[in-house]
Structure formats: C-alpha cells, structure tokens
C-alpha cells in the first residue's frame, strides 16, 4: 500500500500494526551487538588469509609474530591439526556425496582466496593486525578451477584426492516418484519446446553487521557470543566438534544485524576463536572487517540452469525438465548442498505440470563456499520458470499473464498435490493476480508500451510478470529426514506466567531484524488476555532458551509462532481449572472470551489470567491434584510446508541508447495467509523486493582469472542505496493456511523470490523487438546496451 498503514481495527492484537518493541533500543544506540562485548582480560584475534585461490602451503612460520609487541599467541592450521577437525555439513543430500575435509584453519592446502591460514592473538586489535605481517608463509600456487561448467567436466580438480569436482547428483523424476508422467514422453509428443539456459550469478548476502564472535573460556565452561542466526544449532556443533560437553557451552546471539541466510553457518572464525580462547585461557574476540566478510562469509546462488518446457500449441504445459549445475565453492557449507535441492520442489511453481524431472549436480570450484541466501533455492527455481514462462508466451504470441492463468492451479482445486509431490493447502492465484493487474494498470501500461514501440521511442517500456509460490515453514522433520538433513524442523516455545500476571515467553527462534518480540507479544496478548506491554519475549541465549532450531527459511512464525500458540493454549487449560475452582463451577462451564475466563451464561462472573496466576502463586486453595504453576511448553512439528504466493509486476523504462534501466512501476501483491502485524509484513516485502531487484540490476561477486575476488568491498560489490531503488506498491490477498492454527504462511523470503524475474522479464519484454531474449544478471547498462547492439542474448 502506498499510504502509511494506520493501526487497523483488528479484533485483537493479532492483525494490528503495532509499532515494534525492539525499536526503542535500536534508535537510541543502546544496542547489544557482539562487537560491543568487552570482558575483563579480553584478547583480540586477527586472521591471515590466503591470497591464492589454490596453493600448497609449503611452510608457515608464526614465530616472528610472537615477538611483536602485545602478541600473546599465534598459530597456524598445522598447530591445531589434531584438534580442529572439519567444519560441518549438515545436509549431505546423497548417500555417496563427495564431502572433503574442511579444516577451520587451512592445513597443507588453501582452496579459495581468503581461506584462513594463521592467526594472531594480541592485547588489542591493532597489535593483532600489525603482527599478521610478521607471519611468514610460503605457498606453491596451483592452477585454480574457476569456471563452473569446466569444473563439472573435471577439467582440473579442486580436491585432487577426490578424483572429481562433482560432489553429488540429486534427481527427482515424477515418473519414478509416481507423482506424474515421464518428461521423455512429454518431449516426444511436444507441439512446442522451449530450451533455455539461465545463469544465476554469485551473490554475497552482505548483512550490514559484520560477523563477530567472543569466546570466554571460564572455568571449563564456555560462553560464546556470536553474530549468528543459529545459536542453538551452533551450540550443538560446538559440542560435537570440540568435545566440550553441551551443558558446558552457552551460546548467545545478542542483537544480530541482519543475516538473510548469511549467518546460517558454523564458521571457521567461530571455531578458530574457540581454539584460541582454549589455548590462552582468556576471553578472545574476533570481529571481521567488511573485506574479511566478503571473502569468508558464504556466498549465495551461482547456478547454471538448463530448463526445457514442453507445451501444446494452445499453451498448456506438458512437461518441465531441469538440469542444474550448482557451485558449492571449495567445500560444502552447513546446508549448502541442500540449497539447490530445495529448488527441486519449486520449478513446477503454481502450475499444473504433468511431467517433471529435476537433476542437480553440486560442483566444487576454488571459490568461497556457497550456502543459504534469502530464499535458498527457491528464488533460483522461480527465476528459471518465470523467465521461461515469459519466453514461452512470447514464442506463442500470447499474453504472459494469460499463459500463466491457463496453467495455474485454480482456487477450487486446493488442496493440490503437485508433480513434485508437495500438497499445496491453499491459495488463490486469480485473486492475487487480478489485484496486482488492477493496481499496476496493466492495460494502460501495455498501451503505453505499444505507443513507444510504434513511435520508435529510444526509451522503451517493458512489463515483467512474476507469479510465484514458495515452500515455507521449514520444515516437517520426517521430510527433512527423507532428504538426509541432519536435524529436524520443529520449533519450541515456553510460556511462564508470573505471580502478577505478567508473561515471559521463551522462544527457540532467533530473530535478527524480523520483529519477533513484537509479533510474539501480539500473539500472547490475544491467546491469554494480557496486555501487549505485559509480555516479555526471551530469545537467543541457550541458557534461557535451551532448545530451538532458530530463524531461516521463513519458518519462525509458521513453526515457532504456532508452538507459541500451542503453549498458550496449554496455559489456558491450566488456568481454566483454577478459574473454575475460584468461581465454584466446573471447568466445563468456563469459556475464555474477551480476554477472561467466564462462566458460560453468566459472563460477569469472570477471572483474568492474572487472578489465576496469583491464586497459583499463593497456592492456598488449589483444587486437589493441580500443580502450583500455569507455565507450559510446546513443541510444534509441522506436518507440511506452508505456501505463500503472489504476483509481482514490474514496468521498466529501458534507454536503448545508453542501456540504462529504470524501474517505472513495481507492484507486489502477496498472499502470506493471516497476518500478525501488517507493518512488519510490509517491511519484509520491501526488503525482499529490494534484494531481488539488486540481483537483477546491481550485484555480482566476481573472481578474476587467478581466483582473486574482485568484489571484495562495497566499492565493487554494489548493494543498492536509496537512490537506486524505486517506490514499491505493495498489497495483499489473504488466503489462510489450513495447515496451522494461526493460518500463517511466512513472508521473509517472498519479495526476494518474486522480484528478480519480474525485473528481468520487464527488461527483456522492452527489448524483444530488438531481438533480445535474455540478458545476464545483473543487467547493467553495459550488458543491456551490448544485448541491443547484438540483437540477442548477452
């Protein structure tokens, strides 16, 4: 919506545009970033990184560094070889996956620019950084393997001992799975066939807060602060990788400055800081520079996508056949191999596809690892299918919206089992699309496009369509198990009712900008009849929140929020018994309405949660067998994913003389189910759309021929500023999810999934009269200009 959202007349807190509780601290600078942590006796760590993409380490001599002023310790991979082990991959997607050892500190070989080689621990940051220069490393440079397609053909090996660069090949075939027919049959009988190769360039998540970690070794008990999305998962891996018992490890994710998947990782730096602190028995801090972050924090995307659509001449899809090569980088990240595999379920998107095949090969190159970045597999899939649908529409000479409408699942067909084997519970693609077309003035812009074409205007107008769905609410644990993911997908919540009726919530989610404290307070307020202000939400510290699976994959509300509702309902059941006793009636005669426990038919006879809380606290007169607490825990494991969907429309103005692309109008209509806080939802859509536009127009991680990362700072890796982005018009339709009691679906990734193909489709649409049918992302003025000159793909 273009107008400011006013607090809506929601029946309760859920649905109201509550201003965030989180803000008071963040707008006054009273923040708790990991880098703010200062402990008595704390030392500082600096890391020497490889200048080579591939090299044998002949020798490392840290002794000169030890003689520098203020230096306490210095060590290399060889010095910790017997304890450092290998960084984890929790998603070995196939039984025979090639999974090379990945030591936190390189030992013997370096396999990407920026890999950690040696460290200095010193009294302050400057002394540590200065002393790095004294470390002597002799490398024997090796020829790096950089080109993804060549790497897939094993032209040069990243890990010669493995004999191949191909880590795994993961296949889904609807004929074999019994969810559809055979793509080979569809191809044989196709009236229309469209082959396309799309390139997902490599991106860098570029969260604004650089990663930071502080390890305090205490007396055999380790307290670790980390700028991470996953404090709970990190704690488990610290225990597994270091031998320190889990109950002697406390992980705290304080204020965390963005993540977007980029902080969903167990990092070399987290392990190195741990080893350093254990060696010196002092607290140790490591805060990366932006340059470190660009080199070492995982990257995202980076796929070669071959997609074939088959259809009848009237535009009915008969098959989708996908072959991916996915760049893993030099090693496997925490969930890296699974990222493109998540996309396997999404190439069929919202369409009724009879035959589907997906094949993905994960390939090593001498580059920084890739892993989750906003959307993680789903933006890549959506990009390919939505680009291909626009191309198919152009080939058939039909309107791209109408081609989609012809093929998508109709509202009355839900629940719908897709060719990829998922059951979509709900959706209304017509409603969302019609609303978007209306807001966009689709017909008016098509007329404007024609006028510019007819007049030969040097500035051409293009319209890009993107209809999408995504799988959110990661994830049903059984399904994750079937996909060979090491962990489950449940989430947990505890509700503690204090004697005065105030409520503390402990959540296993780990927000880093998403506003859980606010949204969770709204949920509790409605469920328990307490004031929004009377709810405290605790998270991100394994001492207070001992269990959880953290925040990623648009899962927090759809899984963690539902766990919270279930915990609240257990509290209500307990309080109902106490209220009935106080009101001298049977619990069956008590109903919870208007925020209080009332005697059915005598609504004036009522008790609030606070009344029952104090009665339980005093415990003078509880019914026999009732324990003196209202507290409750709940763990929710979803039975299915949730499926947000929507329609994004983009109009671009393309200057055919300069190649400049301007976004003329952007409309996003998303259906994320029930909304707890429309302000937060709108903010998530804005941010997601911005990141998707950035992929389309601005961002790419670039290596040179020697494997040096050229985009090593914000000078070269150009995330958009306010001046680079347009206004977005956002709106919603609301088809509640049927798979959870809140009816929610998730919103964190939707914008980033939908927007990229909308923008590129709009550019290509503007330039089809010039013979252009594709432009590599990011669609820079140079690339657009060259495509126009060449009259074809860039």
């Amino acid at each position: 919506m273009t107008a400011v959202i006013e607090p809506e007349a929601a029946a309760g807190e859920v649905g109201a545009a509550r201003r965030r509780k989180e803000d008071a601290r963040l707008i006054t600078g009273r923040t708790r970033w990991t880098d703010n942590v200062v402990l008595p006796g704390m030392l500082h760590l600096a890391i020497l990184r490889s200048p080579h993409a591939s090299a044998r380490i002949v020798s490392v001599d840290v002794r000169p560094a030890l003689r520098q002023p203020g230096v306490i310790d210095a060590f290399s991979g060889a010095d910790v070889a017997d304890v450092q082990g290998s960084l984890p991959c929790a998603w070995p997607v196939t039984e025979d996956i090639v999974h090379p050892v990945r030591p936190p500190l390189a030992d013997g070989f370096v396999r990407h620019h920026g890999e950690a080689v040696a460290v200095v621990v010193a009294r302050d940051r400057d002394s540590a950084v200065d002393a790095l220069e004294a470390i002597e490393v002799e490398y024997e440079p090796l020829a790096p393997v950089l080109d993804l397609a060549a790497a897939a053909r094993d032209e040069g090996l990243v890990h010669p001992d493995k004999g191949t660069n191909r880590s795994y090949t993961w296949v889904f075939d609807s004929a074999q799975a019994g969810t559809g027919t055979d793509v080979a049959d569809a191809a044989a009988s196709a009236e229309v066939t469209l082959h396309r190769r799309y390139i997902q360039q490599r991106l860098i998540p570029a969260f604004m807060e650089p990663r930071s970690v502080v390890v305090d070794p205490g007396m055999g008990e380790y307290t670790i602060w980390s700028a991470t999305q996953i404090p709970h998962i990190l704690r488990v891996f610290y225990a597994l990788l270091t031998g320190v018992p889990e109950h002697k490890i406390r992980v705290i994710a304080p204020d965390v400055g963005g993540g977007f998947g980029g902080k969903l990782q167990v990092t070399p730096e987290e392990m190195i800081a741990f080893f350093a602190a254990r060696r010196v028995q002092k607290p140790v801090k490591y805060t990366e520079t932006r340059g470190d972050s660009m080199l070492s924090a995982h990257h995202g995307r980076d796929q070669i996508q071959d997609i074939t659509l088959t259809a009848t001449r009237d535009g009915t899809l008969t098959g989708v056949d996908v072959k991916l090569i996915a760049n893993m980088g030099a090693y496997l990240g925490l969930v890296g191999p699974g990222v493109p595999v998540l996309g396997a379920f999404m190439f069929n998107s919202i369409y009724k596809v009879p035959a589907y095949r997906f094949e993905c090969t994960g390939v090593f190159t001498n580059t920084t690892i890739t892993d989750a970045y906003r959307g993680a597999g789903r933006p890549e899939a959506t990009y390919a299918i939505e680009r291909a649908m626009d191309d198919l529409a152009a080939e058939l000479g039909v309107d791209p919206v109408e081609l989609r409408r012809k093929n998508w699942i109709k509202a009355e067909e839900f629940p719908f089992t897709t060719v990829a084997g998922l059951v979509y519970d709900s959706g209304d693609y017509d409603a969302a699309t019609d609303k978007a077309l209306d807001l966009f003035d689709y017909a008016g812009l098509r007329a404007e496009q024609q006028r510019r074409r007819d007049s030969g205007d040097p500035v051409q107008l293009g319209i890009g369509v993107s209809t999408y769905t995504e799988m959110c609410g990661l994830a049903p644990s059984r399904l994750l198990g079937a996909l060979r993911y090491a962990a489950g997908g449940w989430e947990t919540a505890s509700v503690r009712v204090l004697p005065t009726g105030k409520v503390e919530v402990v959540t296993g989610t780990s927000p880093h900008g998403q506003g859980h404290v606010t949204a969770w307070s709204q949920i509790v307020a409605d469920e328990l009849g307490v004031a929004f202000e009377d709810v405290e939400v605790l998270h991100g510290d394994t001492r207070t929140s001992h269990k959880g699976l953290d925040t990623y994959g648009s899962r927090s509300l759809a899984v963690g929020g539902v766990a919270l509702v279930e915990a609240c309902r257990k509290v209500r059941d307990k309080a109902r018994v106490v209220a009935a006793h106080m009101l001298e009636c049977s619990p069956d005669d008590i109903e919870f309405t208007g925020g209080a426990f009332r005697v059915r038919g005598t609504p004036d006879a009522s008790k609030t949660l606070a009344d029952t809380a104090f009665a339980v606290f005093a415990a003078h007169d509880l019914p026999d067998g009732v324990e003196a607490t209202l507290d409750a825990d709940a763990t929710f494991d979803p039975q299915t994913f949730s499926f947000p969907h929507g329609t994004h429309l983009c109009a671009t103005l393309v200057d055919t003389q300069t190649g400049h692309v301007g976004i003329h109008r952007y409309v996003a209509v998303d259906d994320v189910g029930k909304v707890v806080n429309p302000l937060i939802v709108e903010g998530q859509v804005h941010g997601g759309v911005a990141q998707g536009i950035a992929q389309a127009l601005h961002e790419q991680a670039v290596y040179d021929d020697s494997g040096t990362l050229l985009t090593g700072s914000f000078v070269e890796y150009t995330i958009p500023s306010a001046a680079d982005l347009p206004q977005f018009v956002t709106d919603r339709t609301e088809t509640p999810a049927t798979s959870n009691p809140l009816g929610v679906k998730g919103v964190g990734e939707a914008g980033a999934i939908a927007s990229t193909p909308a923008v590129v489709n709009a550019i290509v649409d503007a330039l089809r009269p010039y013979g252009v049918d594709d432009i590599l992302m990011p669609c820079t003025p140079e690339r657009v200009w060259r495509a126009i000159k060449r009259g074809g793909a860039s």
Partner: protein
Amino acid sequence: MSSSHRVRVSVDVDGSRYVDDVEPRTLLVHHLRERLGKIGTVVGCDTSNCGSCTVLMGSADGEQHSVKSCSVLAVQADGTAVTTIEGLAGPDGSLHAVQQAFHELHALQCGFCTPGMILSAVDLLRDNPAPTEAEIREGLSGNLCRCTGYQNIIRAVQSAATALQASAEAALPKEATV
C-alpha cells in the same frame, strides 16, 4: 596499542568532554567505540561506503554536520563537538523527531544501519527542511541499509520533516508567523 607515539585529543561527545592520548592512526569511530564507550556508533565497512558509523561533528559552539567517523581520524576531532546516536534524544529522554518517525513508520529492521541513517537524516533536514522524495533518496545514498528497501526510511524522513517544520513554526513568535 603498538606505537608509542600519542597525541592528546579533547573532544566533546554527547555533551561531555573527553581528553585522551591516542595513536595518530586511530579512527574517530574506534576512539568513540573503544575508548569512550560510545558503542551505539558502529562499523559496517572498511571503505566509507555504508555510513553505519555516521555521527554529527562541528565546532564546539557552532553547527554540526554528518561525517562518517571511519573516515575521520580521532586527532582531527580534537577541539570539536560530536553528537552520536546516544546523544540525539533530549536530556529527558524525549526522542528526536527523526528517531520518533523511524519508530512510527517501521523504518528499521535489524537496526544496524539505523544510528548512521538517523544522523544523516538529521543533517539532511537541517540543510533542507522540506526535501522531495528524490532529494531524500539522494541525500541518504551514502548510507546503506540491507533490510528495509528504504521505502519506510523515506517515509520516516518525510514525516519527520513535517513534524520539525510544525514545531519550528509553533516556536516562532506570533507576529513572525503572520
């Protein structure tokens, strides 16, 4: 620190005077964070692109303007007055109009860029009390945000501009307004 050479620096930060001996190479942002405990000011990059470290700086009794404190040496701040995000609210804790607008209009998510963004906006509105949307976008282009897509930041700055103008008019003597 590794160098023995030190330079005396006196700087007023958020209304208090701090006198320290610092290494000549020390950046103002590190001085603020590590010596003075002004941890509300943060470091987001090494290249003065992101603006997360933005503070207001000026002569002790004159105007202050936004600077990226990663691009100022602590010694350059000698004799100046600096306002960080921690000193922007009134002594009674009342929020500055820009802070209030960022809250009301959901102009922040993770909040890491927010101190710099707010202080840049304060400076922008002092220079141009009624900026257009394009002027706000251009004026804040030295501050990067990865969460919000900027739309609510723009709204917040527009809203703060209106609020500041209204309060400025209210503060004028009656005859001056006719």
